[in-house]
């Protein structure tokens, strides 16, 4: 969850403006609250449900939603609400790892390409073109097939798929500074290029990169869920949201709630993330 922590620094200056926006925009407020809730689910699931996500009462299996089981129970009599709450951690972890890896790798590739230029730049950017040429989900599937199943493998595959966007943004930022530096260099002091690059590029690039990261979270969560829906995510009995939907799919005739609640959760979280990301994009820096 690194991007949240680092996002706080440049954003703090604008906290007042954002705060004012929250009151005026109820959708944004709700989105923020929902994200806070889901983050809390991931961090301290025990605070939100007392029921064991892994241990069910088999006699109570496939019960529809009720006061005792707000989301109903699954085929082993496990409380579905508890499984959704505990499912937040693996789902968000995969998303966070994917976005963080893509961000860092993209920034490194973009910096190298933009700073060195020449054939290295061309080669790196053509590789990024290739990545963009293949539908994300298909590429992620092929990668998962090669590196293996599991939450972290899925996250890495999705990260590779999303790296191109970050690399392009970073390269553009580096080029802006580099072009300005040539003017500086003409005035003398070319030896300090590398350091200038770092001190100038990084602060300028953080805003656009984080805005892109925020915008990416939603689609990354969707891709991660799709992969776990297809059965390539966490091993049972752990429950990612996508997996909950997949295991409920065979019970469509017998228990509608098994797919409905996890699906609704994913949709709402993505919606909220996109809403907050757009607000951040509008306040946290110029678009590129």
């Amino acid at each position, binding site marked *: 969850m690194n991007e949240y922590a680092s996002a706080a620094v440049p954003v703090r200056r604008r906290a007042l403006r954002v705060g004012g926006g929250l009151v005026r925009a109820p959708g944004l407020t709700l989105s923020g609250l929902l994200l806070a809730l889901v983050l809390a689910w991931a961090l301290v699931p025990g605070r939100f449900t007392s029921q064991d996500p892994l*241990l069910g009462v088999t006699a109570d299996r496939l019960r529809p939603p009720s006061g005792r089981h707000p989301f109903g129970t699954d*085929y*082993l*009599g496990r409380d579905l609400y508890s499984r959704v709450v505990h499912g937040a951690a693996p789902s968000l972890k995969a998303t966070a790892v994917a976005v963080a890896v893509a961000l860092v790798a993209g920034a490194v590739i973009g910096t190298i390409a933009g700073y060195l230029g020449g054939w290295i730049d061309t080669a790196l950017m053509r590789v990024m073109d290739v990545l963009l040429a293949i539908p994300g989900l298909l590429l992620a599937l092929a990668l998962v097939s090669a590196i*293996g199943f599991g939450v972290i493998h899925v996250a890495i595959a999705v990260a590779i798929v999303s790296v191109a966007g970050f690399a392009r943004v970073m390269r553009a930022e580096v080029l802006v500074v580099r072009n300005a530096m040539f003017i500086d260099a003409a005035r003398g002091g070319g030896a300090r290029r590398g350091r200038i690059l770092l001190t100038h590029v990084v602060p300028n690039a953080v805003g656009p990169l984080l805005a892109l990261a925020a915008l990416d979270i939603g689609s990354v969560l969707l891709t991660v869920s799709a992969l776990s829906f297809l059965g390539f995510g966490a091993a*049972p*009995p752990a429950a990612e949201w996508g997996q909950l939907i997949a295991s409920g799919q*065979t019970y469509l*005739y*017998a228990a509608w709630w098994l797919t409905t609640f996890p699906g609704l959760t994913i949709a709402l979280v993505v919606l909220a993330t996109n809403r907050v990301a757009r607000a951040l994009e509008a306040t946290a820096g110029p678009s590129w």
Partner: protein
Amino acid sequence: MGPNLGVLETLTAQDPATGKVGPGLASSWTISPDATSFTFHLYDGVTFSDGSPFTADIVKANFENIQKLGPTASNSGAYLAGLTSITAPDQRTVTVAFAKPNIQFLQATSAPALSILSTGSLAGTAADRCTGKIVGTGPFILSSYIPHQNIVLSKRPDYKLAPSTAQHTGAAYLDKIDIRIVSDVTTRTGSLLSGQLDATNAVAPQDEARFDGNGFSVISRTLPGVVLSLYVNEKKTILQDQNVRLAIQKAINRADIVSTLYSPHYKPATSVLSSTTPGYTDFSSQLTYDPITAKRLLDSAGWTVGPDGIRVRGGQKLALDVIFGQPQSLELVQQQLKQVGIQLNLRQLQISQIQPQLVAGNYDLFLGNSSRADPDVLRTLFKQFAIVGSDSPALTAALSKQAESLDPAARQQAVTDAQKIVVSNAHVVPITEFAQVVGQSSKVNGLSFAANSSVRFYDAWLS
């Protein structure tokens, strides 16, 4: 277990009810007293659907081809293991000889893996055959086959003979069969209910109630062979202790697993072999749910309950790794073992990853089953592949004896002994019997099951 298409036929046919092997393409046979040599007498006048005659030379060519393919034909290759010669003294007689007594071969000649292909099909590559270019002697002709999609069969009007297991002779009743390959269970249920299909196999247990009356019905048959079991890796120190193995066996509530995840068509395991396997003996008294005894056994083995409910001994946790390809029943087994203080770690692996783990012995338990309508399946499990790590001499003796016994009673005794040794020592922990469950609309009549529980179309008709 998919459908038994009825395109190809076998030398013999196994009766699903009695397990007895009766005539197929061979009208009769003799087995040498030492069970090493099998002579088949073939029916006269049988032809392949391309018009070519069925002869002893073709049988010989088929078996030789399987031997030659060896590596790529795993199942059929195992059936012919130890084969020394195939001779065809005349066009109606084939003799197959083995180096050692091999009574299982008679049942093997009824298995789909030893089906007889025409000379033309044999001349094609294995890849050709896998993509549907096959011609046989059966009542149906393969009209088209698209992998992962569908298979279309059409009736062979001039079909005369029928195996001893069929209800009628002559041509099949159905003119055409369109088999769709649909991997999703809900979809299969929906398609049958909405009338897009007339029948579907592998109905999900939770959907069976949909086919109760209202113009639909369900038929089922238990799969023969080794039931769904935990194969115990006895090379591991913890699991060399029989008390621990037996504790696992007694901590599993098979009835709860069946009622939670399955349906009345599925049965709790009552032996290491399923009840439809020839030679099966009921050992249900040893496979009852008995958590109290399980706890006592673990106590006596020195495993005491730790602070988190999981047992410990000398600082070591009683945690076992189980590897498997497909999940579900294990989540419940995990819950049940936790009740007696055993932690079960589920390691779901990609199917290809399982093999190296098994070879390296890098697991404690392995969830497996092995389907075959002959008790020799136990010998394959314990001898050919040493995955259970058990080298009980008594078991090896019993399994060798059943392979040599021409006398049915003597073979039955040896098979019973083998099951008893496996169950009472918990070399394998049986869980549930699997079933082939077929949903059908009321229009469908006469669908039946072969001995291996695949669906047979030959006697079926639509009203």
